[in-house]
């Protein structure tokens, strides 16, 4: 007799637990306002990433095509996996002194692990993280970028 009632109690409790679960899913089924899905490729226009988001390393230039990079190479030393290569050149400036400037700031996006050490270490705040996240390309050579724009110069007052 005991096992007999236990059998039916098992069925009853089992059904109740299943219905409880169905209640949860049913609640969301009849309340479509609770959905959180983003319609990703369609919402590109108003999709804004957070300011801190580590998308890629960029070098901001002002409207006179000037950047803050002195070519010191501290970012290159701090990078754990060699994503940054600095090619510097030496010029003679207006005062007649020799000055080391940046020729090419090469950034291998494909090797970057977004640890942020280069940006933390940069003494003149020349590089920062951009919010771009759609990095897929068909040719991996396109992942090697030169961050300083052609013809750009160092901003005045940055040492």
């Amino acid at each position: 007799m005991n096992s007999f009632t236990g059998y039916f109690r098992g069925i009853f409790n089992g059904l109740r637990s299943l219905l409880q679960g169905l209640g949860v899913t049913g609640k969301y089924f009849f309340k479509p306002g609770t959905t959180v899905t983003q319609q990703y490729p369609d919402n590109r226009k108003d999709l804004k990433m957070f300011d801190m988001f580590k998308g890629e390393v960029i070098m901001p230039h002002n409207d006179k095509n000037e950047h803050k990079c002195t070519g010191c190479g501290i970012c290159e030393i701090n990078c754990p996996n060699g994503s940054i290569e600095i090619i510097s050149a030496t010029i003679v400036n207006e005062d007649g002194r020799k000055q080391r400037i940046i020729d090419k700031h090469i950034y291998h996006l494909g090797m970057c692990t977004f640890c942020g050490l280069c940006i933390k270490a940069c003494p003149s705040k020349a590089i920062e993280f951009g919010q771009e996240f759609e990095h897929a390309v068909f040719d991996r050579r396109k992942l090697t970028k030169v961050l300083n724009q052609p013809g750009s110069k160092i901003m005045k007052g940055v040492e």
Partner: protein
Amino acid sequence: MEEEVKAPVPEQEEYVINMGPQHPSTHGVLRLVVSLRGEIVRNVEPHIGYIHRGIEKMCESIAYPQIIHLTDRMDYLSAHINNEAVCLTVEKALGIEVSDRVKVIRTILSELTRIQSHQLFWATFGMDLGGLTCFFYGLRDREMVLDIFEETCGGRMIVSYNCPGGLMNDIHPNFQKRTKEFIKYFRETLPEYDRLLTGNVIFQERLKNIGTVTREQAIAWGLTGPVGRASGFSCDVRKHNPYSAYDRVTFNEILYNEGDSFHRYKVRMDEMWESMNIIEQLIDNIPEGSYAEKMKPVIKLPEGEYFQSVETARGELGVYIVSDGNKNPYRVKFRSPNFVHLAPLNLMSKGAKIADLVAINGSLDLIIPDIDR
């Protein structure tokens, strides 16, 4: 558990089958060579190394701040806690005391990491056992934690937010507001998890008394974290050897004595409540102060051996650094919880059905990159 199998297989013969390296329920590239007799598991032999990257060896050729981004990639679901472990070891070696602000922020972020890791465990565990709804609900709520991480740390999973001496940058002004919103929301949502999965009769039948580990076995095999605590082994590093701000909060260590798959699941569900309690105690009074101590550009540890262990979402992670006084460590060893948890898989699943092997494997919540490192 073991029954007579009416199969045309002779008594001594076993059917050997590979589960993995590409199997949805091993959650990564883990290869289990399973010897079967009928449907009954006779022997499980884990083959690891498919995602071995040599992180410990790589650490020997880079500087201390650079190690941190590698630890993100071991147990990627407790990335922040792994970072913290290395930072604490380096700070211990240098004798630096970080500010209270850093300690509190680290603790809050660690607990958020624990919550999101357990949410993903709940999601994938339900999916392993055939409840796909859990996967959607778990990831939906995890998204809120990831948004907090993204706003403050810049990364969603691979945060790289700690550095020796403090944090990479200060917290975002929205951090406290968002965290409080999440706690309020999740306190209402977590009972739904229980209604949907914990009480489910099919779920319980598949987990209770499956993969049982006694307390003595748990200690002998070195099981820590939720796996050890489900067997009654009190091993919470946060409680026994508090680091960061864990000494100033009150929380319970979740302990069960049954040691089966169901109670490993229960420990994690209860830990999410405890994590929310810890965050609520700290979130309103984050002390003022600097977010990072001033460090030398090149960090050199004094000669010697240093060890620090932390409680990740899966168990005790130990970081052991041998320094010879240079800017690179001489040797780094990570005592990762997942590697230890994989070892008794054979013990747990011997004599169980092959479907139970999936349940046991899921309840251990293994992260394969942490096993191989």
